[in-house]
């Protein structure tokens, strides 16, 4: 008797929990569908040129906000290249910078750091990962941007581009540096974890052959941990891509496509990525054409995030073969 009630209870529990899981799945499905349905009008009226360059993004967004179409164009007219380019620039530069720093830091943490230094570094990494993005943004806009504005951008440089864009320190350099600091702790933790779980005999074999420790690290440990490094990079890219608040604070208010042909000035030109634009334009979500454009930006971010998590999953597969958990 008791056994039978137990089994019924079991089935009930399984069904309830299963229903919750199905509900979550449905919610995600609804989210993807809703975002794409709302984004469709913008993609339909612009076609593939949505992703191309053409005109000033801010003018186009303002035209939608004021419901006065730009002369010769429909109200949905939008060319997103400056925002896409800004996203690409900040993300790629920050990830490359963070990859170099965090690989070196992870090697230091696992191989060279004395026990006492390592104990000090662990809370440091936690701390850097825990600081909210709005605090990073505040430090960027109130401390780093004025510093760069005063010491790195000469007046001659400001005047050389004054007719196109104003340089004030809230720029590509500030955005990239702060973004790199934000994603470094994630990468250090993941890479160090993978380096630490490289089987000891593999490295001992290399050392026994007379190879010095640095070469052993590069040839054996780093090579074994390569899938984990790729996975960490992918995760950090997703984080950098979605960062909105910090970037909307430090990257300058203009949707400007920084031009690499400007030489060094390029580094001091303002950029504004997609996610930051969504935050800044969110008041306009009640205006139909602007809302469609914003949902189109969200759809681009959604697809990129999904592709990245797929890539991360694929990158981790070779690690399973070695039985390394990462």
């Amino acid at each position, binding site marked *: 008797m008791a056994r039978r009630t*137990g089994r019924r*209870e*079991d089935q009930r*529990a*399984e069904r*309830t929990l299963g229903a*919750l*899981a199905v509900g*979550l799945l449905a919610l995600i499905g609804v989210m993807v569908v*809703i975002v794409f349905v*709302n984004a469709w009008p913008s993609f339909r009226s612009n076609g593939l040129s949505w992703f191309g360059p053409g005109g000033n993004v801010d003018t186009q967004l303002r035209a939608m906000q004021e419901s006065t179409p730009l002369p010769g164009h429909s109200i949905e007219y939008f060319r997103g290249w400056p925002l896409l380019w800004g996203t690409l620039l900040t993300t790629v530069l920050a990830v490359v910078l963070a990859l170099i*720093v965090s690989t*070196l830091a992870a090697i*230091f*943490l696992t191989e*060279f*750091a004395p*026990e006492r230094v390592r104990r*000090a*570094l662990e*809370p440091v*990494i*936690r*701390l850097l*990962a*825990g*600081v*909210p993005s*709005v*605090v990073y*943004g*505040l*430090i960027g*806009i*109130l*401390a780093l941007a004025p510093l760069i504005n005063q010491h790195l951008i000469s007046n001659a440089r400001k005047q050389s581009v004054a007719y196109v864009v104003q340089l004030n320190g809230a720029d590509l350099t500030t955005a990239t540096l702060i973004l790199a600091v934000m994603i470094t*702790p*994630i990468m250090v*933790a*993941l890479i*160090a*974890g993978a380096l*630490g*779980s490289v089987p000891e005999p593999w490295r001992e074999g290399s050392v026994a052959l007379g190879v*010095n*420790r*640095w070469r052993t690290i590069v040839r054996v440990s780093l090579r074994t941990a390569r899938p984990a490094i790729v996975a960490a990079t992918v*995760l950090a890219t997703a984080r950098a891509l*979605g960062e*909105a*608040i910090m970037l909307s*604070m430090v990257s300058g208010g203009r949707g400007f496509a920084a031009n690499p042909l400007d030489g060094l000035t390029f580094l001091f030109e303002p950029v504004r990525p997609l*996610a930051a634009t*969504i*935050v800044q334009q969110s008041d306009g979500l009640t205006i139909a054409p602007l809302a469609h454009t914003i*949902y189109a930006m*969200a759809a681009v*971010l959604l697809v990129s995030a999904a592709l990245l*998590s797929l890539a991360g999953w694929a990158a981790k597969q070779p690690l399973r073969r070695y039985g390394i*958990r990462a």
Partner: protein
Amino acid sequence: MSETATVATAPPVAVRPPRQSTAAWPLADRVGYWLCWTTGIALCLIAVAIVVFMLVKGVAYLRPALFVEHPAASLQQSQSGGFLDPIEGTLIITAIGTLIAAPAGVALAVWISEYGRPTALARAVESAIDVIAGVPSVVLAIFGLLVFSEGFLGFLSQNAANGAVYGRSFFAAGIVMALLALPLIVGSTREALAQVPDRVREASYALGKSRASTIRWVLLPSIRPDIASGIALGMGRIIGDTAIITILLGVTLTTQGVGSTPLLGTLRGTGSTLTSYVYNNSPAGEGNAPQKAYAAAFVLLMLVLALNALVTRLTAGRRSDRASIGGRLRAIGGSLPWTR
């Protein structure tokens, strides 16, 4: 004195080869070695710089009165009030988010780890949780705004004069925040469940317990600290997120209730949290009162650091593989808000 204490309780450390002189190494290798030292120390310096900077600014502008005054719109920083309402807002949002995410997260993790049938559905749910973890919070926020502006959800926010639903409220922001915390809670619960040895389950079945009661009375109590650390991580994410607040809670500085029902009215109304207060008072926002922003950011940082310390305590020495260097570093990875 403390030296002997640490020696006595130190976990067994993996044996490393004794330090060799690098003098005999080729130049390139020595450069690499020193680069490692430089970056390690540079990271420490950056962290110290951030903490010292926030500490100096925070202490300079923080006054006890700020904690009990309501914010007020004023161009003068001396008259724009304190951040009582934002602190309340942060507490309310965190409470709503955690109350939803904690039971849902534990339940989902239990279903995936202990039942997980049909397998295809379990894989799909796993990737759905991955997707939530990877989606930028702005995207979640504008999705939430669309959902909560639907007519039938009007009871969660307020109706405008023309019958349209506003869609911005503590309820709306809190519920979307729950999505943000969910992957963290699911992650740490699943990882802990996977570490419970099968013999524990078998012993319970042998005593005639059903699966459901094994989960309720044996498995869940044994992983309580891990669930708690997952929840604390989730709370950290909720407290630190700004995008969802600025989009779904509106940007009114003070808590603006709807109607006369005390608690429900507040929850249906709009307000602010510490993060949106900092954002608004930064040069990027409308308030532009840097002193207030620094003070609030300092309080925010202290809150997050306290939660961080809690997670460290909860996870310290929990799992067997903590003793090895790799295990301990993986443990850091597992306890960062972004690595899942």
